[in-house]
C-alpha cells in the first residue's frame, strides 16, 4: 500500500507532539536510522556465525543496543519527526466510534440481520 502524506511544518510539530505523548513506540523503530541498523545487524551476524545468537548475554546486549539506538533516535530531531510520523499513522487510536441508533428487539431489520449473517437490507 502507498501512503502519501502532505503536511506543513506546523502540522509536523503538532503531529509529533501528539504522537510522542500518546503512542508507545516499539524499540525496533529506532533501526530505521541506517547507522544504528548497520551496527545492530553486524553484531547480530557476528554472534550468529559463532552459534551464539540465542545466548542470554547476547540477547541482553542486543536489547541494550536497541535501547541506546532508540534514545539517540529520539534525541535527533529530524529523525524523531520520522519516527513520530510513522507512529502517528499507525497508532491513530483516538478515533471515536459512535452508534447513534441502538439495535432493539422491535427493530425488524435488525432481526433480519441476526437471521441473515450477510446482513444489511437491499434498500441502500
Amino acid at each position: 500500500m502507498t501512503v502519501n502524506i502532505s503536511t506543513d511544518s506546523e502540522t509536523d510539530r503538532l503531529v509529533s507532539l501528539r504522537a510522542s505523548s500518546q503512542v508507545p513506540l516499539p524499540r525496533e523503530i529506532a533501526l530505521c536510522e541506517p547507522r544504528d541498523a548497520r551496527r545492530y545487524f553486524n553484531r547480530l551476524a557476528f554472534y550468529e556465525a559463532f552459534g551464539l545468537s540465542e545466548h542470554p548475554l547476547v540477547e541482553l546486549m542486543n536489547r541494550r543496543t536497541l535501547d541506546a539506538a532508540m534514545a539517540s533516535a529520539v534525541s535527533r530531531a529530524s529523525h524523531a519527526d520520522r519516527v513520530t510520523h510513522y507512529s502517528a499513522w499507525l497508532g491513530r487510536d483516538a478515533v471515536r466510534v459512535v452508534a447513534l441508533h441502538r439495535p432493539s428487539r422491535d427493530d425488524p431489520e435488525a432481526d433480519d440481520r441476526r437471521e441473515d449473517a450477510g446482513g444489511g437490507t437491499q434498500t441502500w
Partner: protein
Amino acid sequence: MGESEAIDYISGMEHGVIIAVGSGKQGKSCSLHSLIDLCWPHRPVYMLDPMEYDISMFPGYRRVSDPNDIPVGSVAVIEDVNRVFHSRGSGKDATLQRWLGIISHKSTVVCITTQSMAGTDIEFVRSQDAVVMCKRMHSEDLAFERPEFRMNQALANIWIERAVGNNPFLDPRSWCFFPRFNECVSIPKVPWWTYSNSHMLRDVRA
C-alpha cells in the same frame, strides 16, 4: 444530541459543503439524506439536477435545475455530482465558483455524493466549510483517489471495518467516517428510505 462531535458540528452549520464519498452502493445517498433529516429536520431541501426525474419518493423535497433558484437557508443536494458539475469543470465554467462563493451569504448547505474525489471538482473543498463524510471505498478505487484524500479514505476503510465487526447488529452501510472529527458514526436510516430512493437515477440518461 451531544454524542457525536461531527453530528453536533454539522447540525450547527449555517452554510457549508458536506461531501459523501465512497464506492458505489456503500450507502452514500442514504446516509447523506439521513444526516440531513437528523441535523436539519426543518430546513427546506432542494435537489439540484438539470435532469428531469421523479423525486416524489423524497417527502418534502423539491427539484431545481439552476443554483440561483435555491432559496436562502435551504439545503441543496446534488446526487452523483460529477453529472452536474464535471471534475475540473470550474476551470472552464465559473458557475460553480460563483455559486459556492456566496453560499455563506445565502446560508445554504450544499450536500453532494461522489464516488471519488478524483472525479469531483476540487472547488467544492476549496471555498467553503467542507466536511467530508467517507463511506467504504474498494481498494482498486482507492488507488485512483486524489493523494490529499487517500490517507483519510484508507483510515475510513479501517475504522468502518472495525466498527462493523464490533457492532454486528447494526447495518454495515450505516457507518460513516468523518476525518475532520476523527469519528466513525453510525447514522440511523430515515424511515422513508426504500429501494426506489437508492435507484432514483435508474431512468436518467447518462
